[in-house]
């Protein structure tokens, strides 16, 4: 087990190293002057010269990479000229909003996918199964930003059921976690919790649809595989009722491989938040990144790119370890 852990962590570190070189090559060693990219289009020559030496762009590439990686892990992610703030503090400020949105999107996708897929496979109706398959393709193929726009046009403008693009709604009085819904719950303020959830619903649903479709496809395929396993016939021969067979045996077996999709789901949430947040004026990292792109203030975008890779690798590592821990077949080896 220890060996497995060490090997997995080791290869994750190598991958992070490779990814950092790649990010460096893509973002720093391109023909465009990185100093101009960082300083923005309105900077004068003096600022650019200052940024050039600040970034060490006059040094050899090898040294530049070394400086880049050291400062990244030291938490020095650059300075956002348009916001007049260090990138790190900007990201830290906006992290809770994005985290809360991603959390709810994940919950919606996960609970929804497990519920409909298991229900359809239990009912064993060919017609429902076809419908589910089509639904999964529609979910995966719909551009999240367009869906967000449709949600606003229908559920806010036409029907008035949900708040418009006004972000997270009123902030709770005391901050514990930065997640509005949780902070309201801690404060015992249930109407505040309901308001926060009301604001979260549309953006979280728009963000959830892609991961939902993906999870449905994966879970459905796994369930189909498991249902045909000989041990299911054995269970019937033991006299186990179909409900128990389905929920106590088939579902856990189909569920475990679904865990491995955790990393891919996160990738979709990271990318999707950049697309969805802006439409709802959500004060999260995604909006920050788009603003950075539009103002050509790339320091924050660069930090976000490297950060996504590290989170992505980290989650995949976690999933592997978790999978090894949960699945008795892998646990021993």
């Amino acid at each position, binding site marked *: 087990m220890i060996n497995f852990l060490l090997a997995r962590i080791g290869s994750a570190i190598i991958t992070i190293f490779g990814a950092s070189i790649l990010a460096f090559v893509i973002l720093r060693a391109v023909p465009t002057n990185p100093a101009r990219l960082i300083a923005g289009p309105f900077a004068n020559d003096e600022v650019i010269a200052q940024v050039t030496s600040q970034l060490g762009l006059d040094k050899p590439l090898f040294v530049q990479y070394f400086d880049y990686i050291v400062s990244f892990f030291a938490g020095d992610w650059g300075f956002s000229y348009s916001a007049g703030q260090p990138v790190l503090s900007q990201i830290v400020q906006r992290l809770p909003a994005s985290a809360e949105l991603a959390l709810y999107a994940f919950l919606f996708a996960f609970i929804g996918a497990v519920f409909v897929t298991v229900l359809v496979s239990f009912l064993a109706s060919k017609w429902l199964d076809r419908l589910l398959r089509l639904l999964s393709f529609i979910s995966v193929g719909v551009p999240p930003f367009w869906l967000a726009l449709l949600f606003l046009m229908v559920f806010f403008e036409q029907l008035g059921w949900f708040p418009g693009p006004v972000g997270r709604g009123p902030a709770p009085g005391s901050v514990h976690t930065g997640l509005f819904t949780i902070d309201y719950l801690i404060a015992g303020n249930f109407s505040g919790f309901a308001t926060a959830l009301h604001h979260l619903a549309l953006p979280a649903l728009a963000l959830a649809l892609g991961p939902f479709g993906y999870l449905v496809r994966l879970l459905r395929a796994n369930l189909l595989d498991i249902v045909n*396993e*000989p*041990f299911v*016939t*054995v*269970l*019937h*021969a*033991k*006299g*186990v*009722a179909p409900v128990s067979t389905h929920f106590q*045996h088939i579902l*856990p*077996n189909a569920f*475990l491989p679904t865990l491995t999709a955790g990393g891919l789901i996160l990738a979709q949430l990271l990318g999707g938040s950049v697309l969805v947040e802006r439409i709802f004026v959500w004060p999260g990292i995604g909006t920050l990144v788009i603003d950075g792109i539009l103002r050509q203030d790339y320091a924050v975008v660069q930090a976000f790119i490297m950060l996504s890779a590290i989170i992505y690798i980290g989650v995949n590592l976690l999933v592997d370890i978790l999978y090894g821990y949960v*699945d*008795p*077949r892998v646990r*021993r080896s």
Partner: protein
Amino acid sequence: MTTTSATPLLEVEGLKTSFKTSRGIVKSVDDVSFVIPAGTTLGVVGESGSGKSVTSLSIMRLVARGGGSIDDGVIRLNKPGQPAIDIRNLDEKSMRRVRGNDIAMIFQEPMTSLDPVWSIGDQIIEAVRLHQKVSRAEAREKAIEMLRLVGIPAPESRVDDFPHQLSGGMRQRVMIAIALSCRPALLIADEPTTALDVTIQAQILNLIRRLQKEIGMSVLFITHNLGVVAEIADRVAVMYAGQVVEEGPVRAIFSAPRHPYTVGLLKSIPTPGSSSNPMASRKLDTIGGAPPDPVALPHGCRFAPRCPLAIDECQKAPPPLFPVGENHGARCIRWPEVSK
């Protein structure tokens, strides 16, 4: 109706089971009848596709999962001192009480017959608690006892093992422990030794024989290997293309077979009836040709196209089961001429 000890435990009469496939309807079991007296073993022998597994799944009423249906016939279970159970017309809930409790089954593939994410103990406990009103702790004691009974060393610690931690032979022992945990009146063993190493096969056969005596159950033992049948069965039914072609006491079948197919099967065993080498798995290489297409069966005798004794008469009408000896029948019009 209360049964006496003279009534056989299981009666199967005129069983017909078919499957819908893309190529048409396959009559996997076509008019099969046999009885199993209490405490005895019936060996069912035949090539794969002969309908022997479908017969056992029909008795368990588990054919619907594979797209099959029981079209005709009677399956009756007569437990001593209790009303007869008409399996074909039982409601599903009562049928679940029969499965695993009155009739238990073990399968060919021990490697995939256990739920990989449940411990073996939990899988025995599940069976025990489904059919008996006992606490979890009692069921666990029972599970350990069953593991000891089937010869698993250190059952107190092994009970928490997962299937992947056990060898194939050990897993088949666990399957037997699950099947016997409720002391069934009938055990159906569908090729339980085929997937195992030769040395393990003999151990499992001995185990089944020993436990049969201890529990006093009947066994329906399915195999393609006549050598195994000689070891374990009291009576033998030979199946070919969905029908029983010969049925009789094990001695009669081995010493005086009355169907050419049985003769062919016997010839394919290097040392027939010898217990020194019962598991040699050379299979039917002395019978030329292949079994008939299940969606286009011959009109007359189904074995005629491969039969060395076939005459024109054989193609004309399906032969009935002729009585050829005491409790011995053969589906061949030329049975008096058949010999080893």
